[in-house]
C-alpha cells in the first residue's frame, strides 16, 4: 500500500514534527523520491527500510534540511525550510539529533568535547553541564573513554558517542541512519535499547535501516511503525514485520 497524505500518524496525539506533502526529490533530472506524503507525530517511533540506494538517507536528509525538496511541501516543526536561511536550518538542527552510520567527529578533540559540541555551538556553557555530560557518557557506556580521541574509538564506541552527541541537547527528534551498520549484534541491541529508552522519554525516533532483525527486536518492545521505500516512494511495510 502506498502511503498517501496524512495517513501515517502514530497513535500519539500532537502536531506533526515532520510533515511531507507530496514531496519529491531529484538530482540532475533523475527522481530519487516521489509522491512522499507522511506525518511524523511527536513521540512516535518509525523505522525506514528499503534496499540499498532506495533513498533512505535522502529521506533523512530531507528531514534535517541537508537537502531541499525539488517539489512538494515539507514542514519541520510546523515551518517550511528555506535553503537560503542557514540560521533557521541551524536552529532546526538543534532540535533534531542525527546519528550517521559513518559518524563523523572532530578528530582533534577528545570524545567528551565532541559529545558536548552541540552545547558549544549553541552558546551553552559546557562547564555548567559537565555533570549531565558525564552522566550521558555513562549512559552510553563511554565513561571509561574520557580523553580518548575519536580515531581511538571502536566502531561501537563511535556509534554510542554519536548517539550521545545527538541527544545531549535533548532534541525532540532523533534520526538515525543505519546506526547499527558497523557494529555487531550485541552492540546493535545495546544501541536499540538506548533509542527505545529515548522514545519512552518522549523523543520522536526515526531509524533508517535494512536490518530486519533489529526491527523485529524493537517491535517486541515498542510500538513502532515500519515504512519502506521502494520505487522511489514510501509504502507501509508488510505485516510480516
Amino acid at each position: 500500500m502506498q502511503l498517501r497524505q496524512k495517513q501515517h500518524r502514530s497513535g500519539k496525539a500532537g502536531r506533526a514534527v515532520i510533515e511531507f506533502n507530496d514531496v519529491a526529490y531529484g538530482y540532475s533530472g533523475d527522481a530519487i523520491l516521489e509522491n512522499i506524503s507522511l506525518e511524523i507525530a511527536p513521540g512516535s517511533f518509525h523505522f525506514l527500510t528499503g534496499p540499498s540506494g532506495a533513498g533512505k538517507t535522502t529521506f533523512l536528509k530531507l528531514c534535517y534540511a541537508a537537502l531541499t525538496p525539488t517539489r512538494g511541501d515539507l514542514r519541520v516543526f510546523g515551518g517550511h525550510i528555506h535553503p537560503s536561511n542557514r540560521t533557521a536550518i541551524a536552529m532546526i538542527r538543534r532540535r533534531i539529533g542525527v546519528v550517521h552510520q559513518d559518524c563523523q567527529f572532530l578528530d582533534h578533540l577528545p570524545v567528551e568535547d565532541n559529545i558536548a559540541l552541540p552545547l558549544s555551538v549553541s552558546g551553552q556553557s559546557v562547564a555548567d553541564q559537565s555533570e549531565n555530560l558525564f552522566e550521558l557518557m555513562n549512559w552510553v557506556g563511554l565513561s571509561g573513554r574520557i580523553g580518548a580521541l575519536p580515531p581511538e574509538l571502536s566502531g561501537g564506541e563511535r556509534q554510542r558517542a554519536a548517539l550521545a552527541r545527538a541527544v545531549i541537547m535533548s532534541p525532540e527528534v532523533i534520526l538515525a541512519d543505519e546506526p547499527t551498520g558497523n557494529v555487531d549484534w550485541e552492540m546493535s541491541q545495546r544501541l536499540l535499547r538506548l533509542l527505545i529508552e529515548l522514545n519512552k522519554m518522549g523523543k520522536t525516533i526515526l531509524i533508517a535501516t535494512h536490518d530486519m532483525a533489529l526491527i523485529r527486536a524493537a517491535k517486541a518492545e515498542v510500538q513502532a511503525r515500519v515504512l519502506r521505500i521502494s520505487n522511489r516512494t514510501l509504502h507501509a511495510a508488510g505485516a510480516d514485520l
Partner: protein
Amino acid sequence: MSISIFETLKSLWVGNKAADRIVPPSGFTVGLTLFSAAAMAFLAVFALAVALASGRLAQSWGDDLARASTLRISAPDGQQDVQTEAALRILSQTEGVSSARALDDDEVQALLEPWFGPDLPADKLTIPRLIEITQDGRGFDAQGLRLRLQAEVPGAVLDDHASWRTPLVKAATRLRVFGWFSILLISLTIASIVTLAANAALAANAQIIAVLRLVGATDSYIATAFIRRFTLRSLVGASLGTAAGFIAVMLMPSNAEAGAFLTGLGFKGWHWLVPILVPVLTACVAFIATYVASRRVLRRLA
C-alpha cells in the same frame, strides 16, 4: 547565509574558547599565513620608510631649496674680492632677498671635500667665490637680478637651483607615490595570500564544517572561528615582521653620519609611530579577506 560582520567583530574581540578549538591547530596554512604576514609587514615598513623619506626630501628640495640660491663669481685674481663686494651690495638692495653672505674658504673646502677629498690644495687653485642667497617669502626677480649682475659684476652667475632641483623634486615625488603604491600592492598581496590560505583551510576542513552544521552550528559561528584564527595569526606574523623592519630601519646609517642622499631613508619624529599601524592594518586586511572567503566557501559547501 547570514554572517553578521558586527557579531563577528564582537566575537573576534571577546573570543570564544570553545569556538577557537573547533579549527584544528595545525596545518600548512599556519606557517604560510604567519610567514607571509611577517614578510609583507617587513616590506611594508620599508615601503613606508621610502614613502615618508621621499615626502620629506620632496618637501626639503621643493620648499626649502626654493628659497635658497647661489651666486658664483669667477673673476681673475685681484678682481674676485671687488666683484664679491659689488655683488653683495647689489643683493642687499634687491627686493625679495632676505640675506646674502659669501662663503669663506673653509666652507668652500667643505663643499668640495666629498668630490676631491680632504687634502685639496684650495689655496693653489682658482676657485670661484660663492654667495649664499636666502629669499624672503616673496622671492626675488631672478631675471632682473641677472641683468643687473651682468652689467655690474660680469663674473657672476646666478643659480637659483631650478635646473637640478626640479627633476629631484619630481623624482622624490614619484618615489613617494611608488612607496604608497607599494604599500597598496603589499596590502593586496597579503589579502590574496590570506584569502588563499583561508580558502584552503576551509576546504581542508569541509568535514569539520559538515559536523558542525549537523549539530546546529550557524555559519556565523563557523566563520568566526576561522576568521579569528586567521586574523590573530596575521596580527602575530605582521607584528614580528614590523618589529624586524623597525630594527632594520633603525640600523640604517643616519644622514648626519654619512651625509649622503640614501642614508636619509628612514623615519623621523612622529613618523616612527606610523609602522605601528602595519600589524593593525594587516589584521584588518586578513579579517576582511577571511570574512569574504568564509562567506563564499560556506555558501558553496551548503
